[in-house]
């Protein structure tokens, strides 16, 4: 199993969710996060006054999938989240050792 974490622009969430649903992914967790990468925040101007935004609002999604489907999930997230502008985000993939569905006690891929 692989754990996939992605930092995406907030407005891409629905597209990412739809892409993952089309692949048969049935669940994920989304968090509201703030951070910066190469974008290093930015400055906003309102009526001549400047406001520095050091941490940019993003969404972080997390999901665990079977090894077989992980490359397709990665590709789907990248395609759905891409706007071709700076700040599109990142995808991180880790090995996941175990998973348990608490209600039934199922383990491994069956628990996903």
């Amino acid at each position: 199993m692989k754990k996939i974490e992605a930092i995406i622009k907030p407005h891409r969430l629905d597209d990412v969710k739809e892409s993952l649903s089309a692949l048969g992914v049935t669940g994920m967790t989304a968090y509201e996060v703030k951070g910066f990468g190469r974008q290093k925040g930015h400055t906003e101007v309102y009526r001549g006054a400047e406001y520095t935004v050091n941490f940019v609002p993003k969404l972080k999604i997390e999901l665990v999938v079977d090894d077989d489907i992980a490359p397709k999930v990665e590709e789907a997230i990248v395609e759905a989240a891409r706007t071709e502008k700076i700040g599109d985000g990142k995808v991180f993939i880790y090995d996941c050792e175990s998973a348990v569905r608490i209600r039934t006690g199922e383990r491994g891929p069956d628990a996903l």
Partner: protein
Amino acid sequence: MVGSSVPGTVAARELSDVTDRAVSALAEAAFAECEEKWAVIALGAYGANRLLPYSDIDLLVLAETPSQKLKPYVEGLLYPLWDTGIDVGHQVRSRAEHLKQSAADIEILTSSLTGRILAGDREYATDALGEVARRAHRRRRHVLASLAARQRPGSPYLLEPDLKAGIGGQRDIDELVWRAAVLGAAPSHDCTGLVELGVLTHEQAALVQGAQDHLTGTRWRVQTSLKRNSSRVTLDLADEVGLDGLHEALADVAIVLDGVRGILPTVDPDPWDGQRLFSALAEGTRALPTLESAAFMGRLDALIPGMSALMVLRRPGLGHRYTVGAHMLRAAALVAGIGADDPIAAEALRAPGDVRPLLVAALTHDAGKETAGPGHAERGVPAARALAEAVGIDPRATAMAERLVREHLLLAETAATSDTDDDDVILSVAARVGDAATLGALYILTAVDSLATGPGAWTRWHAALVRDLLSTVDGALADPEASKMAERANLVRAEVLEALPAKSPLAPIIHAMPSRYLSGHTASVVIAQAGLLADVGAKGTDRALAIGVASGSVAGTYRVTVATPDRPGLFATVAGCLTLAGLDIMDAELYTIGLTALDRFVVGSATDASIEHHTWNRFERELRAALNGNLALETRLAKRRLHYDRRTCSRPVRVESDTRSARVTTLHVTAPDRVGLLYDIAAEVSDAEIDIVRVRALVKDGVAQDVFLLTDVDGQAPRDPGVLGHLAMRIRERCSKA
């Protein structure tokens, strides 16, 4: 019995009676051997005959026997109760100890004021309970002040009210009962004594009694459902326990107690006018209890039709914590203080103008929720109009209030669901907002609406998203045409699509064209240029360049359109080739549609020579070569310069950047005109990795006055003073060379 009873005060009394029989029987048995005076007394809610399923019972064992000797008797009473699973709170005191502790601790005092004798020496117990009340009466100023100091969290209009500790809940009714006991100098189980004392009217006492029945019934259903002691009605329980009339009951109690405490005038029958309403709102959230009570009692109905009904209307969802009316009042009351915590709101409020349209909008923005279902923003507009007219604001301000209500979800929804880097999104928002003043007011309405919704609706995360959008739209609205662009673009797009044959290959290109482009061109021009774009092939192929030429609006000028795969420095290259062809650039607009650049130039002859067919052929040939890297453009331009006068003007080169707009940075360059000047400036801008969005070129008396609108590679306005300063220096150096 619990399952078969009709929840309410009658059922609570019956459960109390059943419990009484068990406790008194146990007590009589346990204390049978006790030789001293003793009594078992029910305290608190149980004492007042209001026992609910799964609630605890509080007992006081009053006895003159030393505690060590008393212990087996007390255990004989409590152990069987504990064994049944009843949660029993108990106190064991002598009469003297009880009197002393009742004087020292307000909670012991209040539990005793509703005390009821269950077993033992009735005369002894009656005297003790009576003496507690009499002593409290003697100290009534202090005791009543202590009762009034009790914190009352929440609101009668919370969607998940606390029926015990919250405002209007059981503790508020209890306080009225305690006041009756203190003022009447005798234990009491209801507040009717306050009627005899002239503190309450019969009608108020009846309202409290009705509320007591309602609250007891609801709490009975909650605790029966949860199978535990709980006073909070969560949203998931609401349907199961039924909440009809609950907010009315809580509000009735709150208003009666507020009147008794002197917080609110008990009788205030006059409808409010606009001046009174705005004065109250100017006090901010401090005025909320007064506003809520006035609204609940119908005092605002003449201003906001149906407001009293909205005060008890539940529309849970999207994190809302209050009833519709209470939410709107909260939003309006938050306007007064929003500037203290939000510098952007403070900036918007600093702008000259009338704050009343914003307050009108805040007070009515969810009035459309009177009818369930989507579209409440539009449905709320008539309420905004009615309030605006009732308070007498002028038609322009009324129109602004209507627009604010109609669009009150626009910023929050767009920020969360749309790409705010997309110019079309920004222009669309600008079109719906209309002007900067309305945008500022809409931002404040968004903030107070979210803050009034609940703590999760306006986090720094949400605020940052909305502020980013606000800043960009505000920048766009600096262009007076911006608010009309989206509408104009939609009209042009529709006209073009109608003119095209069905399934035309140009349709996808038309859909991809930005509003800023479409709004500035006629349908026929758009179709022609879409044709050019359709002809453009991949970079490096013969079809990588398409050029269109048409006569300009001024005699001797031409409109040149260049479509080619986008690349850095493209504008400089095209400008250089136009110069080589003997053409002067007067205006340029640069667009990117998909991955293709569509650059439009207005040109005229740079010399006295007329522009002929071969001029365009040369331009195309040289541009194609330059794009393929087969033309030494810089060298060719330098050679060409040799054919012209070295200097026609001795004015110094001036370069100034203007970073006031959030969208683009404007670069003003004033320099003596010469061949290839525009190319030189554009090449320096390109070297600084800055994109040119638009160019306006003007030559007057031999001086070029060029204006460049710039963005960085991220599509944002370059603002770094170091980068802009370095660019200005490079341009000055280059343009100063002959």
